[in-house]
């Protein structure tokens, strides 16, 4: 759409940037970038609406804005008033703001309610070639469609509400090429955990990551969303995958997907988006998919991960003094001794959910392992679908019965124990195998200890009561339900 497209091979990220450029910044000023889709939730928006009100500004594009309730919402008794007063106030504030300004809102109890990053793709609002922002760092999820999607702070939420643009400095680009074929039991979650362990929890800082290569091409949209979701855990602003037939097939027919001539125009444009032959990235990383195994974190940042068959590393093995000190602190917080096989670590809880892994495919994967089995006595298992629609879909397939027969709690949709803003929290000292995205100190509840894993590892762990992969499960253990 811009008048002057550079006459050189460009990356996917550069094409998206050029096509959303409203004003080119001069003399060190940032560029002004147009935002196609603004997702809103209750936690990072109240102060932004307040700002609009104080200045007498309207929401510029209500037709590019949509809100949902997710971070605070309870996952039980959703038909009753929210017990926590401050949570209730925040939800009620969003409802008042949405009504006053005219923003479309999907409230608790609505069939389109759910985690904002599950709702956007499910409605067909997320599509290739667009810019997406939300006051949430995991907005990077939407990059799986070949869009430019990133998290913003509350001042920027207000900025987008008022102007539908953001002043931004161009990001650097990093190509992450994953070639080969995954072994059975190895998933997108393991790839991204391995990448973060390789480049570090700050390795992507200042970059947009583009995931490419045969292993990425063969991933489903759900798998690509899992990978892009965790780009921020490497410190990157955004992650993306070039759109292809898998992407088009996923978008087509969804409630907000283009139709007729618009669809044809869109697909014609989307096909021009993949990075050009010879496009230059600021950095490149390679990973061999053939060698990957199920992955797990042992520490308190997402870069502190190893293969599940490994042992807890010795802090002394880190050359960098900052990394060594961080590892020492992490082992103390996690109550782990160096040299312990990860598979010997027992857990108190398994959390299956979050914007990283709560889509229908994730629930199916979890169910495929636990079906016909019983959970370990020592473990509490929570299954939280990403959206009300995912919950309905799972129930239509009978997955809810698989979960409850196993001994798991089948909950309503929301962010839940990923960050414990609602009552779903770990008690101090409790250890959890979690399909979520962050293992920071206290993330899932004060004093709680988090091991990030895939849905398959979470399922096997729930069966054995200790960190495990599906291949550790004896076939004979499966009983008739």
């Amino acid at each position, binding site marked *: 759409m811009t008048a002057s497209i550079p006459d050189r091979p460009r990356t996917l990220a550069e094409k998206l940037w050029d096509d959303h450029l409203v004003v080119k910044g001069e003399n060190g000023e940032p560029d002004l970038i147009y935002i196609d889709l603004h997702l809103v939730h209750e936690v990072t928006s109240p102060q932004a609406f307040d700002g609009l009100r104080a200045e007498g500004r309207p929401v510029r594009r209500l037709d590019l804005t949509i809100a949902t309730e997710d971070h605070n919402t309870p996952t039980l008794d959703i038909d009753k008033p929210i017990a926590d007063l401050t949570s209730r106030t925040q939800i009620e504030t969003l409802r008042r703001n949405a009504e006053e300004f005219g923003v479309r809102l999907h409230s608790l109890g609505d069939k389109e309610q759910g985690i904002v990053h599950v709702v956007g793709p499910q409605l067909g609002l997320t599509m290739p070639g667009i810019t997406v922002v939300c006051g949430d760092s995991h907005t990077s999820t939407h990059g799986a469609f070949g869009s430019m999607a990133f998290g913003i702070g509350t001042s920027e939420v207000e900025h987008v509400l008022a102007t539908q643009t953001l002043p931004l400095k161009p990001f650097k680009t990093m190509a992450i090429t994953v070639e080969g074929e995954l072994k059975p039991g190895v998933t997108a979650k393991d790839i991204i955990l391995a990448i973060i362990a390789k480049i570090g929890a700050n390795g992507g800082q200042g970059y947009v990551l583009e995931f490419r290569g045969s292993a990425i091409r063969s991933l489903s949209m759900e798998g690509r969303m899992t990978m892009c979701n965790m780009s921020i855990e490497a410190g990157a602003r955004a992650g993306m995958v070039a759109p292809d037939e898998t992407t088009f097939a996923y978008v087509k027919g969804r409630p907000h997907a283009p139709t007729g001539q618009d669809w044809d125009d869109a697909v014609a444009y989307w096909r021009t988006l993949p990075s050009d032959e010879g496009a230059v990235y600021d950095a490149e990383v390679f990973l061999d998919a053939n060698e990957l195994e199920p992955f797990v974190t042992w520490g308190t940042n997402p870069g502190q991960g190893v293969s599940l068959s490994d042992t807890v590393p010795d802090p002394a093995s880190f050359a960098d003094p900052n990394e060594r000190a961080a590892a020492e602190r992490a082992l103390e917080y996690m109550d782990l001794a160096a040299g312990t096989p990860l598979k010997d670590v027992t857990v108190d809880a398994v959390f299956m959910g979050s914007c990283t892994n709560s889509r229908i495919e994730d629930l199916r994967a979890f169910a495929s392992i636990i079906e016909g089995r019983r959970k370990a006595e020592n473990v509490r298992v929570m299954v939280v679908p990403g959206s009300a629609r995912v919950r309905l879909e799972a129930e239509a397939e009978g997955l809810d019965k698989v979960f409850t027969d196993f001994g798991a709690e089948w909950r309503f949709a929301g962010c839940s124990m990923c960050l*414990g*803003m609602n009552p779903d929290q770990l008690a101090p000292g409790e250890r959890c195998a979690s399909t979520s995205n962050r293992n920071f100190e*206290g993330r899932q509840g004060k004093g709680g200890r988090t091991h990030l894993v895939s849905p398959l590892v979470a399922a096997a762990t729930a069966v054995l009561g200790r960190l495990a992969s599906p291949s550790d499960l004896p076939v004979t253990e499966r009983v008739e339900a």
Partner: protein
Amino acid sequence: MDAFTTHTGIAAPLTRSAVDTDQIIPAVYLKRVTKTGFDDALFANWRQDPEFVLNQPAYAGASILVAGPDFGTGSSREHAVWALRDYGFRVVLSPKFADIFRGNAGKQGLVTGVVSESDIEALWAAIEADPGIEMTVDLTDRTVRVGDLSLTFDIDDYTRWRLLEGLDDIGLTLRNEEKIAQFEARREAWRPRTQPVR
């Protein structure tokens, strides 16, 4: 936003790397709907430890935080910046900041100065040799001074200019209202619409 030129105050050493936003302000404190009053939430879990740096009497009233690398990683919560500001911090110095945190800070008048790792260690040594010592951060010439030590810090030109002038981003953007409208007139029909609901 108030303009920032120079600030002198007590500097507190936070000798940790990768201080993430869940440590700066745990999620349970994000439920408030106001933009102020987050001072009690800052480092809420760590502050329960009497030995934590901000609990030491020498650092009472500290307004400059000198931290290890990768400060502010994790969530996009601007509440992390509000909590630092409400507690009284005007400046954070670190060898490296997480992108979203740094952006949020710049919009709230909190200066994020990038100082090399060896300089951060020199600053820690100077502070710990004389706990409660005052430090001066001058944005006009990008310098940090404490005792006999004088160092420079990095901050990008545009953020520095906005902080020095105390300018508001939305006001700056709306000067380009006409260009935004022209851009909107060119947008293709296939792009997503949230309303009307189909």
